[in-house]
């Protein structure tokens, strides 16, 4: 079984700062990580490989330094890594990203064997759209299984797959066919710690690096800024509330006094609430 998994290197958004004056992102010293959601997909891919045999290929599109993310994926135990990097990809939105990635996956299929499953994470933490996965599926005409919480079974002979999928109000069980694209739900597993062998192999392995031409992309108008129908017109910092919270003075007050005062404060601001709460609270 050949599994391709798409990962993205993202800035650790917990550490991102916005320049107080210019409102631009200050990336200085902000570490990059593998998009945390992708790790659930990666682990699931590794488990499937361990259970059914085969290979796991990790793919990312990004700047040359995204190689770090791929190497890390190899440390977890992936078999092969492909970096799709080209200036023409810069500024891609979801449509252009899914185009480039789907072309690369097709090329991976030609070069290393056609994938049975393509995995993506549920969403990224920088783009946060959850659209690249469905985009790839559509372009490659793969059956699309999103928000998968569990892979119940795979029958490689019948090319059948059964999954449990999270929906708004419950869990849906779907049976579909390979090849398919799965976006994996978070919290479904925990990424493994690669063995010393995996780590050594990762440190030494060569990463396959493709530019647009290598990936067989001829139509550059579908890539990067040019291939992106969406246009970012304005970037700005969220408005800050002018006044800070009104602080209740705590000096020499018992918790009960404080509670009295706080509750009075709440109801004076939201007078209707008292009746509603009384109703709910007693119900």
């Amino acid at each position: 079984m050949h599994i391709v998994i798409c990962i993205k290197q993202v800035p650790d958004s917990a550490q991102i700062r916005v320049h107080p004056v210019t409102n631009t992102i200050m990336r200085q010293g902000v570490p990059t990580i593998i998009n945390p959601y992708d790790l659930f997909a990666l682990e699931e891919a590794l488990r499937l490989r361990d259970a059914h045999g085969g290979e796991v290929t990790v793919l990312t599109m990004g700047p040359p330094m995204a190689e770090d993310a791929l190497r890390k994926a190899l440390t977890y135990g992936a078999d092969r890594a492909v970096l799709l990097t080209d200036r023409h990809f810069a500024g891609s939105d979801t449509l252009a990203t899914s185009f480039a990635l789907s072309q690369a996956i097709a090329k991976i299929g030609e070069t290393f064997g056609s994938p049975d499953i393509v995995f993506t994470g549920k969403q990224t933490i920088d783009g946060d759209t959850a659209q690249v996965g469905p985009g790839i599926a559509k372009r490659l005409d793969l059956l699309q299984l999103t928000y998968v919480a569990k892979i119940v079974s795979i029958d490689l002979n019948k090319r059948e797959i059964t999954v449990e999928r999270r929906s708004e109000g419950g869990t849906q069980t779907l049976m579909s066919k390979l090849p398919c694209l799965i976006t994996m739900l978070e919290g479904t597993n925990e990424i493994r710690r690669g063995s010393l062998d995996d780590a050594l192999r990762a440190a030494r392995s060569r990463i396959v690096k493709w530019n647009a031409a290598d990936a067989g992309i001829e139509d550059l108008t579908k890539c990067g800024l040019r291939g992106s129908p969406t246009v970012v017109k304005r970037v700005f910092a969220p408005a800050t509330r002018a006044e800070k919270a009104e602080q209740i003075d705590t000096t020499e007050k018992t918790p009960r006094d404080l509670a009295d005062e706080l509750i009075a404060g709440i109801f004076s601001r939201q007078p209707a609430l008292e009746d509603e709460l009384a109703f709910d609270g007693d119900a």
Partner: protein
Amino acid sequence: MTEKFDAIVIGAGMAGNAAAYTMASRGLKVLQLERGEYPGSKNVQGAILYSNMLEKIIPDFRDDAPLERHLVEQRFWMMDDTSHIGMQYRSDDFNESRPNRYTVIRAQFDKWFSRKVREAGATVLCETTVTEVARDADGKVIGVHTDRIGDVILADVVVLAEGVNGLLGTRAGLRETPKPETVALAVKEMHFLPEDVIDQRFGLKANEGCVIEAAGTISRSMAGLAFLYTNKESISIGIGCLVSDFAATMESPYDLLENFKKHPSVQPLIADSEVKEYAAHLIPEGGYKAIPQLFGNGWVVTGDAAQLNNAVHREGSNLAMTSGRLAGEAIVQVKTRGDPMIKENLALYKSKLDKSFVIKDLRKYKDMPALLHTNSRNFFTTYPQLLSQAAQNFMRVDSTPKIDKERATTAAFIKERSRWGLVSDAVRFAFAWR
């Protein structure tokens, strides 16, 4: 798998990178292990880099190393609670084509250095903690165990470059745990500001940088030093005091830093900045007398792990780099001769170190740590206060005759510290510094 390497380096800090680079670039099969997520991830941000020592390892480092600002100005402040009296040196000569000192952000710099190590041919594994050194029946170090599933990894020699609180060497009995009175605890913050604001506040232009080091009542009678470095878009600010002092006084390092930041001389420099990354780290300050055994059968120890740190001049990374390089060179030499990595042969590392500035500098200041420690009240509280009063006395123009002002100053000094005390402090300081 029992793969064997020529050398294993533990740690990807300054010392480890220097050692690994030196050996790998001379053709040795090197494995470097770092427990952090990436090299530098565990290292306190913001530091000064000394070019000379790095040039000896990577001569053209300026081409692509992530350097923040080159230093053109150094200030030293003696502070009391409301004032500082200072010495300041600034020279346009430092705007040279190959500047002597830079500020760097360690997380980025270490990453760059590590890339060089990899390009030189070493195998670098991160997120891999060495849990134990492996020895043969005779006690010779023959490799390491890690926290990853797998066999022991073998090597002819193991270079310990695990930093000041590396447990490995002490656990293996290769050296002692540093004592509280020989390590300082430094806390540090990064304050982000736009580049032009930093330029403006410090009177800098085009990548020029400035360093402030400060001592005085800010350390509340403990032996300690505060510092402030300008990076490109941030200011590193911190304070360090001996661990034993913190323990004795029950002061919190965080409070000290808060006070330093609120000091009227400092506050305007960092006003309106965005704080990020609070970090605490140990600095070995024991000096010459605290240096442990540096080599043995199948192992050498370098950098902070070997207490090679010049507390007086706040130099650490350059000693770390140099000791790493010299260890690497010694190992390469032994290897080239085809000799075994036994104690007698690895002594070459020590003799190289002895001849270098590392040991010479540390020997020069060998009495300084003890002096500052036992006399910290005077050096860090009394004198700064006296000096500040004296300065203010002179600068405030009133109708007191100057001669009276001078007398008052002298009297104040003597009252606080007695004539004998003053003389003895001066003499002892001079001896220690000499």
